[in-house]
């Protein structure tokens, strides 16, 4: 889960990293008031995406009037598909140097990695591509943590204009904040050195590991959940992973891998998936809620149900679907492919309840569903 700058910076401050004074504003008047208290400031759009500066979402203001004028333009602006609803009014900083610092989970070393570059202020992709020699990385043993001494070793040899000690301390504190908050990414870009030699975090990107949310009850509510459609919100409520797409072939399967593959195969045969919906894993008892939800999307033309039971038993999933059948009364052609744990029971249930047989394999079921949605009515009638 992403945290916007205003929610991420307190995480840094709590770990002892210096951040500029700031106030959150939701109206131009509030922004002007805040600027009156803070003085010369920066008005920063708060959206869960990057590239705010390039979109015009970050503006300098010397007076409350200027702050108000900028806030008027920025609030309501759309940046990367997000409408700006809040701005951070932050004290202007005297920037002498801009660095980059981050801690992230690294699949290669299977541990945290600390990253630091003297080339801050731009995208990390650009830093890595243009000045890879200036990017220093250290793999961390998560059992031991990351000390100031290790940070000093990481930045040894770099010219930081006398801010070496401050940067090393900041990196160690950044690691502590990462470890304490189940971060998968905690990034300061830019980490600045001011004219007076202070090391200050000017921006912060914080992504919390979704699997850590449960044990971060105080912090998690401050994050920005993914923007969901109405049906996706229903899915979340049921604990079912549902992603709405723009096609008309409903995909209902178990397991992320199989569900993705069902979409791939529907597309391979010329169909357009209407959704990703998986009821595997812990959601495998939720066939009823899943069927009601997927049929709720307007304009759907066919449904492919693809069960390959391992942990998720086909008979249990089928039981849930059939339970919902009478209530929901699907009026579109439905095609089944069933294999794995509990398959024989599931096939019998399908036959007994609906008089249907599954198609011989997933390709056949996906092709039939794609054809039915594309108007090959004869195919659908035969299959049913």
């Amino acid at each position, binding site marked *: 889960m992403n945290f916007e700058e205003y929610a991420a910076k307190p995480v840094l401050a709590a770990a002892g990293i210096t951040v500029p004074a700031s106030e959150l504003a939701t109206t131009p008047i509030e922004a002007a008031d805040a600027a009156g208290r803070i003085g010369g400031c920066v008005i920063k759009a708060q959206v869960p995406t990057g590239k705010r500066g390039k979109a015009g979402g970050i503006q300098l203001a010397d007076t409350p009037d200027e702050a108000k004028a900028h806030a008027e333009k920025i609030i309501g602006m759309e940046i990367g598909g997000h409408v700006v609803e809040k701005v951070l009014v932050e004290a202007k900083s005297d920037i002498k140097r801009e660095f980059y610092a981050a801690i992230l989970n690294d699949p290669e070393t*299977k541990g945290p990695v600390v990253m630091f570059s003297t080339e801050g202020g731009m995208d990390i992709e650009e830093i890595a591509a243009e000045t890879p020699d200036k990017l220093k990385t250290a793999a961390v043993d*998560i059992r031991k943590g990351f000390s100031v001494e290790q940070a000093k070793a990481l930045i040894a040899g770099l010219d930081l204009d006398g801010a070496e000690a401050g940067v090393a301390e900041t990196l160690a504190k950044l690691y502590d904040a990462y470890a304490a908050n189940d971060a998968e990414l905690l990034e300061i870009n830019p980490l600045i050195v001011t004219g007076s030699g202070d090391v200050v975090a000017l921006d912060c990107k914080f992504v919390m590991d979704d699997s850590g949310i449960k044990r971060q009850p105080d912090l998690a509510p401050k994050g920005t959940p*993914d923007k969901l459609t109405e049906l996706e919100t229903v899915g979340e409520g049921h604990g079912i992973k549902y992603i709405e797409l723009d096609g008309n072939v409903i995909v209902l399967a178990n*397991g992320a891998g199989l569900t993705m593959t069902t979409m*791939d195969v529907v597309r391979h045969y010329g169909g357009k998936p209407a959704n990703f919906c998986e009821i595997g894993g812990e959601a495998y008892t939720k066939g009823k809620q899943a069927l009601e939800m997927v049929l709720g999307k307007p304009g759907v033309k066919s449904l492919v149900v693809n069960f390959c039971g*391992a*942990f998720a038993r086909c008979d249990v999933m089928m039981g849930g679907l059939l339970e919902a059948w009478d209530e929901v009364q699907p009026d579109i052609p439905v095609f089944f492919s069933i294999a794995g744990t509990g398959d024989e029971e599931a096939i019998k249930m399908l036959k007994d309840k609906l008089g249907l047989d599954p198609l011989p394999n997933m390709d056949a079921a996906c092709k039939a569903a794609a054809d039915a949605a594309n108007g090959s009515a004869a195919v659908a009638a035969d299959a049913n």
Partner: protein
Amino acid sequence: MHICRSEHKVLIQGITGKQGTFWTERMQEYGTGVMGGVNPKKAGTQHCGVPVYATAVDAMQDGGFDASVMFIPPLGMKAAALDAIEAGAKLIVCLTEHVPVQDVMYVMAAAKEAGTTIIGPNTAGTVTVGECFLGFMPAFNERIFQPGNVGVISRSGSLATLMCQNITAAGFGIKAFLGIGGDPIIGTTTLDALKALDQFEGVEAIAMVGEIGGSMEEAAAEYAATMDKPIAAFIAGGAAPPGKKMGHAGAIVMGDKGTYASKKSALEAAGVNVLATPSHVGDALREAMAA
């Protein structure tokens, strides 16, 4: 140790739970050498006909074990895995989904130091066909698993079930299956699994099921290029919409790896037959075995 054999002794952590019980019974019926289970609250009792211990360390001292299978909730996984590592487990199969990644990394560091192999988290487990299985794959389903000479690797259990069914339906059989898990950070990578199956006696061909994201398939492709045994691969997610964007800094680790196109081209350059749909695996194996 990646591949469990019939002579190996297996501990079930979380044996007394509903899923632990159901799957322990299936494993025992199939031939897995379950020596005991762990549940601190029921230590000293018997469950599924085997002793229940307070810790894995106790189990090691009493009957001894080679591998542990964990039916443990997400926030309990770290302590359970560290217990098994301390006990001296050679292999731990972690089935649990939604384990906090920092806990996973902690376990990985401890396992590396102790020389313990971790499979998972978020895996359906492994099957050594006709001998034993660990986890919750339908090893006992004859339409999914028939003995043979194909080695199968998958990040996803459901997709593996499909692939194994297709292999069996095409008249081939399976020697061993390694489910490596769907989490971003896992103990046994595609490359580790590929090496293990390549070196496992009786495996003559490999079917590999990958997914978009990460760079494991690309890393495996480098090794695949050096192998004599034929490989057929399916990569799931070609039709997936651009999902959650990788974290800013994550992109640096991933580079341009992780997309369907990247994985397909890396594998094809290594001589791997990349399948359009999983149903094509039979034809691919027939072609490879005839060559």
